[in-house]
């Protein structure tokens, strides 16, 4: 029983990161109607930023979140301006399909660049707090993972407030609802698109920095994180920041509980099966309103 409870706790902790990874993807998808399948590679870059800041300058990854987010914001902006922007005016179906293709090309390029620059070695950040744990009803909670969950939650809260309250955040939501009408009331739609893409990438940067504290970072981790993010987006529905976070935690718990019953080798399979079931039964997401 304790082991199962421990699995639930661990699943929830890692699930917070799934949620954070998914929100950036969801933001880009919801606002621009583009699916950036290189999102996992952006997360990988964020992980490397935190790893190198720690290794070279001893910066704690929880501090590196800010430079990592800033760097990824710029990367996202450049990617958008150079590659994705030309799709902005295309009709919906074509836009989606071509954004997937471009994202696929970007992921191939980023993955190989990372391989050239940093080799295929798995990297991890081990800070002084790495071994510390807190007790929780018979299970243990690693402090670093708890910190990552809290930061993920705070980042999403910040995003939520920004989208609800800030003038620019509201412009983003208006553009997501109806770009034509948004443009008519004077919202600079082109800028909003670029910033939304940058913001989505910055969130991948935050997630990557957090991932570096708990899991391995290597050039190959992108695809699996993209899949996780996609699963969570489908579970949570597009455009709901907290729905996405809850769906992430749910996926984390579902994975580790099924890992407990079926063996650890099947935890990812269960997540994917869950995803296919939801996709065929409720394609608008578990938490989406009609």
């Amino acid at each position: 029983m304790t082991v199962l409870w421990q699995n639930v706790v661990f699943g929830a902790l890692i699930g917070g990161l799934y949620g954070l990874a998914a929100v950036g993807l969801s933001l880009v998808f919801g606002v621009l109607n583009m699916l950036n399948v290189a999102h996992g590679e952006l997360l990988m870059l964020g992980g490397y930023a935190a790893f190198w800041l720690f290794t070279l300058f001893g910066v704690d990854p929880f501090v590196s979140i800010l430079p990592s987010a800033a760097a990824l914001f710029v990367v996202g902006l450049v990617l958008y301006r150079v590659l994705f922007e030309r799709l902005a005016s295309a009709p919906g179906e074509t836009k989606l399909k071509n954004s997937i293709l471009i994202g696929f090309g970007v992921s191939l390029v980023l993955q190989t660049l990372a391989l050239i620059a940093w080799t295929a070695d798995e990297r991890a950040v081990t800070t002084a707090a790495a071994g510390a744990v807190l007790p929780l009803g018979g299970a243990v909670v690693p402090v670093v993972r708890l910190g990552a969950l809290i930061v993920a939650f705070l980042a999403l809260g910040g995003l939520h407030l920004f989208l609800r309250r800030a003038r620019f955040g509201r412009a983003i939501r208006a553009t997501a609802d109806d770009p034509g009408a948004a443009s008519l009331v004077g919202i600079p739609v082109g800028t909003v698109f670029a910033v939304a893409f940058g913001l989505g990438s910055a969130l991948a940067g935050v997630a990557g920095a957090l991932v570096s504290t708990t899991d391995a970072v290597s050039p190959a981790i992108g695809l699996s994180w993209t899949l996780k993010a996609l699963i969570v987006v489908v579970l949570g529905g597009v455009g709901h920041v907290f729905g996405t976070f809850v769906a992430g935690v749910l996926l984390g718990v579902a994975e580790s509980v099924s890992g407990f019953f079926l063996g650890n080798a099947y935890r990812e399979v269960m997540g994917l099966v869950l995803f296919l079931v939801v996709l065929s039964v409720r394609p608008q997401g578990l938490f989406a309103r009609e």
Partner: protein
Amino acid sequence: MRGAVPLGALSAACGVAAAVLLPVLTTNQALLSWAFLVLLYTALAQSWNLLGGFGGQVNLGHAAFFGLGALATRMLWLGGAPVILALAAGTGAATAAGIVIGAPSLRLRGPYFAIGTLAIAEILRITTGNVLPDVSSLPAGDLARYALAPRYYLAVFAAVTITSAAWWLARSRFGHGLAAVREDEAAAEAIGVGAFRHKLGAFALSSGFAGMTGGIFAYYHVSFYPAFVFSPVWTFDPLVIVYLGGVGTVWGPLAGAAFFVVLQEVLSLQVGEPHLLVFGLLFLVVVIAAPGGLVEALRALCRPGARRPAEVGSPPPA
């Protein structure tokens, strides 16, 4: 002119004859295995093209069918069945899986088809790795009798068959229906073209042929981990090849495969590992700037200003 043999058919026949005669003309094993790879990649890329190019459905789970065909063929063949029967069974298994998987996933709208198929391939890859963790190697007896020529002829057969299927799609009523569905599903339905039926037909063809190619790979490769044949590279390589060569064209996959294999050889001699970087960049350039790929570029070089209407055109990027 009436009765004259069309130039295209003539050069295709010459190409097939050259491919068939190659093992007789040369004993150079390096050249032969290079040609084998071109044919294998042509077959795999063309099988993706049947659904992805002619049908416009971006399938990111192609590796699932390549892997199923490879696994079934390998197990039956190493179990003692004649390789032709094993290959037929592998092709059949992949076709059946294509219908079973295609029917629900083709009902998914927008990006969910691409993601859903990717998820299916990953499920199969991880599960296969868990159930069959050991490397599959040829027994010593088979290894001693190993010859490249029969593998090569099977690859010729697959490349010719699948390219013929593409040629048929570019001309037949079914192919025109499929093109109509690709361009505008609602409009196609309105004029009586059953969109789902056409997409499912193309899916079954595409996955069956992917399975056939996988089976040939399983017959060719001396030892591999069973999970490897489900690896995403068996989706991503054909996708890159198809776009480099010309998506939705009959000859694009052949041009792309030759280019891919040659460039890979040259680059791995020159720069080693990072050849994927070059392919990734080239892929981006093609998707963004030259959606017709190599085939369209060659055509523009040969006849400036002219565009042959007979072939199904490549879908515009935006």
